């Protein structure tokens, strides 16, 4: 009996249990209306790039050129037709906070930081951002409408984000002074996404094992007292039966596979590639299940110091990023580090492109835009001019295979463009002083 139950559970697997949730989603319940989904993922990597090996060449007098993929962006070759680089967008927000703080804190909010007590390497100390970030803004808009509402609205993934909340480790804000913490532990994210379902499965698997204990204890009580124990056992059997029906009913209706995570991966530097892969799987799967339509994917943090030993680079990223361009080893290392980040973006794009759009046409990548960005334009100058913005995918409906140059335009206008393309045009986003000219033209 016990053997067959185990086998049964193995066959149906946890994925069966999870469908339970997918079926309860309002957006799925509406069926046909869900075909036109627009999704957004904002991927963050830190410490600027090496511009000469990152940005495609666009003539000084031109605003656009065909996409040229230099060393760092090479991994995006398979997605060339859905890739756009946007040069010339500048984070011009001033006020409190050092370059790295404003770099990440104003990146998605487009507004100043509050005064505070966090002192960076230069400038004045600062606190949290004074406004909401674009991802949370879009989430609120989508959740306000029953047709676009999803279980979570947005998901905030992290990879190796230090276990402390400060201006450097947060890019997402649900409002002024309200930073949103990313979840950088894949197991925690798994629990958030599938925890309840997993608990049902776990419960189903132990109930049968309780029988022995009931049998043994029954013999120790009087006939009168046995009644309560018998009622209890009947209750256990009923729960067991209900669970079986619940799980079996779902075997026919698995909408998507639940990612299998390798067990016991510790949250430590050398596991970063594996953790990134796990998080990408969870992200793609949660999009497929329509758990959310907006996500952030924050790899490390502003001034992040990942040590990419798997690339034979033993120094921390941030430390290397301060080296002058003349230091050839560092220069080369930074190209490799950024290429690795680009590979992660490409992996995400690949997984999305391999997944058919549920209930729709084409792949999920056709309906999703990945925005890969950074808190700085270049590490050793700490400039927030020419912030990297690379877009991959078709969610925002922007034509690919192009390198656009906006020639020193405030990045607020880019945030407005994203809002508009997601269906929620705004007169401004963040500090209105940087929004005067409206959405970007020539997109």
């Amino acid at each position, binding site marked *: 009996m016990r053997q067959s139950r*185990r086998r049964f559970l193995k066959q149906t697997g946890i994925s069966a249990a999870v469908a339970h949730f997918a079926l309860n989603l309002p957006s799925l319940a509406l069926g046909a209306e869900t075909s036109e989904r627009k999704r957004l993922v904002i991927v963050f990597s830190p410490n600027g790039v090496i511009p000469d090996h990152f940005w495609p060449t666009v003539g000084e007098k031109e605003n656009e050129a065909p996409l040229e993929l230099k060393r760092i962006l090479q991994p995006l070759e398979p997605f060339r037709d859905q890739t756009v680089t946007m040069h010339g967008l500048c984070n011009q927000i001033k006020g409190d906070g050092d370059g790295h703080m404003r770099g990440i804190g104003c990146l998605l909010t487009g507004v100043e*930081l*509050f*005064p*505070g*007590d*966090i*002192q960076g390497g230069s400038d*004045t*100390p*600062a*606190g*949290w951002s004074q406004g909401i970030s674009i991802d949370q803004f879009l989430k609120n808009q989508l959740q306000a409408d029953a047709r676009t509402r999803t279980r979570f609205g947005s998901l905030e993934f992290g990879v190796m984000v230090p276990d*402390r*909340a*400060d*201006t450097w480790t947060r890019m997402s804000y649900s409002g*002024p*002074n309200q930073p949103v913490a990313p979840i950088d532990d894949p*197991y925690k994210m798994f629990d958030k996404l599938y925890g309840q379902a997993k*608990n049902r499965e*776990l*419960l189903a*698997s*132990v*109930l049968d*094992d*309780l029988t*022995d*204990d*009931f049998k*043994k*204890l029954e013999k*120790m*009580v*009087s006939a*009168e*007292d046995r009644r*309560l*124990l018998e*009622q*209890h056992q009947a*209750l*256990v059997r*009923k*729960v067991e039966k209900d669970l079986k029906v619940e799980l079996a009913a779902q075997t026919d209706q698995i909408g998507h596979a639940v990612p299998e995570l390798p*067990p*016991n991966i510790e949250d430590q530097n050398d596991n970063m590639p594996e953790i990134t892969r796990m998080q990408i799987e969870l992200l793609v799967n949660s999009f497929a299940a329509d758990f959310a339509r907006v996500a952030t994917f924050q790899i490390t943090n502003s001034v992040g110091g990942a040590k990419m030993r798997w690339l034979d680079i033993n120094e921390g990223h941030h430390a290397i990023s301060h080296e002058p361009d003349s230091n050839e080893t560092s220069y080369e290392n930074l190209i490799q580090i950024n290429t690795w980040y680009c590979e992660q973006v490409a992996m995400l794009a690949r997984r999305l492109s391999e997944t058919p759009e549920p209930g729709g046409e084409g792949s999920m990548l056709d309906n999703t835009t990945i925005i890969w960005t950074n808190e700085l334009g270049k590490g050793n100058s700490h400039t927030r001019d020419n912030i990297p913005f690379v877009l991959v995918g078709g969610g925002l409906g922007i034509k690919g295979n192009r390198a656009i140059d906006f020639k020193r335009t405030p990045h607020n206008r880019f945030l407005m463009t994203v809002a508009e393309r997601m269906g929620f045009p705004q007169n401004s986003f963040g500090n209105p002083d940087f929004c005067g000219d409206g959405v970007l033209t020539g997109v």
Partner: protein
Amino acid sequence: MKQPFYALTLFLLPIMLSVNAAADSTTVTESVETAEQTGATIFAAQCASCHGPQGQGTQENYPDPLHGDASVGELAELITDTMPEEDPDLCVGEDATAVATYIHETFYSEAAQLRNRPPRLALQRLTGDQLRRSLSDLYGVFAQVRRDTWSERQTQQGLDAVYYTGTKWNGEDRKIQRIDPVVDFDFGVDGPKNVDGSDAGINGESFHAHWSGGIRIEQTGRYEIIVRSTTSFECKFGHDRNQLIDNHVQSEGRNEFRRMLTLTGGRIYPIKINLNQRKRKGETPPSSISLSWVTPGGVEEIIPARFLVPGWAPPALRLTTQMPPDDRTYGFQRGISVDPTWDDSVTSAVLEFADRACDELWPDYRNHHKKDKRSRDDLLRNFLSELICVAHRATPEQAQADRMIDAAFAANEAETDRIRYTILLALKSPRFLYPTINADRTRSWRAGVQLTLAMHDSLPSDRWLIDAINKEEVDNEPQRRRIATQLVDDARTRAKVREMFHHWLDVSPTDDLRKDEERFAGFDVNVVADLRQSLDTFIDSVVWNETSDYRQLMAADWAMTSPRLTDFYGDAWKPCADDADKAMGRFQPTVRDSNIHVGVLTHPLVMAKFAHHQTTSPIHRGVFLIRHVMGRTLRPPNSAFAPLSPDLHPDLTTRQRIELQTSPASCQICHTKINPLGFALEHFDAVGRYRESENGKPIDASGGYTSRDDEEFSFETARQLGDFVASSPDAQNAFVSRVFQYFVKQPIAAYGPEKLDRLSEQFRQSEFNIRKLLIEVALICSEE
């Protein structure tokens, strides 16, 4: 706030068949018999057709069994007046007395019921509270529980504090090390000072300060913890890895942090606050911090020193799952049924515990076993095995933990899955949920389980106790007495005692005690919150002081007061300068006033609870006194009555209105017992203020009581009522019985028909020592 009146209880409602009665009456024997035999004969002839031959009732006529606690005299009077229903003159005088004597002795009285159907120990599962406490202590097995004795409770207060100037941790930068009674500081721009206000050498622009210790939770419920600060800080709570508030970044306008938590009574929860004033470019703003809370039924206040404890506080479980309420028909909770809601809640509580085990207990365990040479898998097996032994209340040999652990290891690969699987299996097992099915456990385990269930509603988890049990040292009476004596002086017992009194006095944090705002101006939430603390501190000071005297509880001529209560209640609520040493924070004993203070009986919280919106309710007060204090039974009223409106009878006092409404003979059967007790408290208005008159008429607080032995008592004031209650065997026995049932969750008669009398006698001989009573109670239930 409208509540049904307790009204008439007709316990003999017969419809006799006249034909039978008339025919049978002629057969009554004339021969000389004892009253009882005569009674039996008359009963068979005139009564049994409706009430059944054993008074058990008959479906067609009078279905309820004849059970009650009226005395023989009262019964005889009732029979004379009302029985048989179709011809009450048929059975009067000596005949009525004979019938009363017979039924009282044979099946009517409580004693007769015990003789006929001896109560038994009914099987019970853990109640919701017991589950919460057992999980709490199971969590504590690894970290250890800090025992909080009464003397520590009184002397160890506040939090450890250490202040450094600058950013370093050097000895020379450590400028202040002290115990701060409360955390409520406005350091301004100059920074922390010495207690006397002198400069401590701390730079106000750059310093860090750290508070650590525990928060005493005396009552299970929802708490809100509030920290206000204009400075960067973090607050850890419950466990070092559990950051309750993270304000690492001080950001303008973000100065208030609120967190709701469900906490378990009788536990100390560790808390740590690290404050960090960072030097800034430009002007550094002033620094401040405060630690406040809102307790169940309370209002926001800075956490008082007596709820803070300096020094080491081990991690404590924060369980958010709420268990559904248990059966309370007998006045205490019992786990006598199972249903899907309960089962679901158990599952979610257990899974929550399992998560804490994965995140906190298991990493801590590994940390403690750093030098252990065993493999990580073996260590995990050991960890789970220790957990199962305690959860299943067994020696390692008897627990058979391997069976469960093997199953968990076979079915799962990931460590956390193995832990969760094992814990779910172990804690959903009847072995955990039914603590008293343990015939196959050792004698010491069985006794240890009973002792901790009685005292703490939990399981043996303290290391010293488990060691004693495993050494078979919890067996004979002296051993058990030693253990019980140690267990009684513990915050967990105090929490249970307090809950018992709350049940007994029928006060709860959710009571809405708002009264007519015009008539009782100033009786606001703050006064009510202070009354709750006043009652709790009063009970604590009586129960946990040297004499632990029950009579003080019923008749003390003092109460615990606060400045706010003095303002509202006047001179009798002024603090007594001589008793300042007995203060508990801002609560201290009042001046003595034997008219206004009569133990818990006239405490304003109790008075307000048993009162209407505008007026007192002598009926509610009377019912409380007769049932809870005197331990007598009353059948519930046959229907709900609305009280007569005072507006319709503007010239009557409350007493007069009650007398008017309950005057019909049918009401009087019960109300002759209820009203005279309730009237004795008429000097106390709906918010418990003392008054001499009502509506311009002097208060008449005369009342009385007829004991189980048919003795009549009368009193003129609440003071006389209190003195009577303190000395009345009825009340003493009721108290002993209630304590026993509340602590053991079984009727005392189930342990033997003579136990109540013996325990009551011991109670009297101990000068009514409540703490000693608790020990005797624990000894009885751990006897075999």
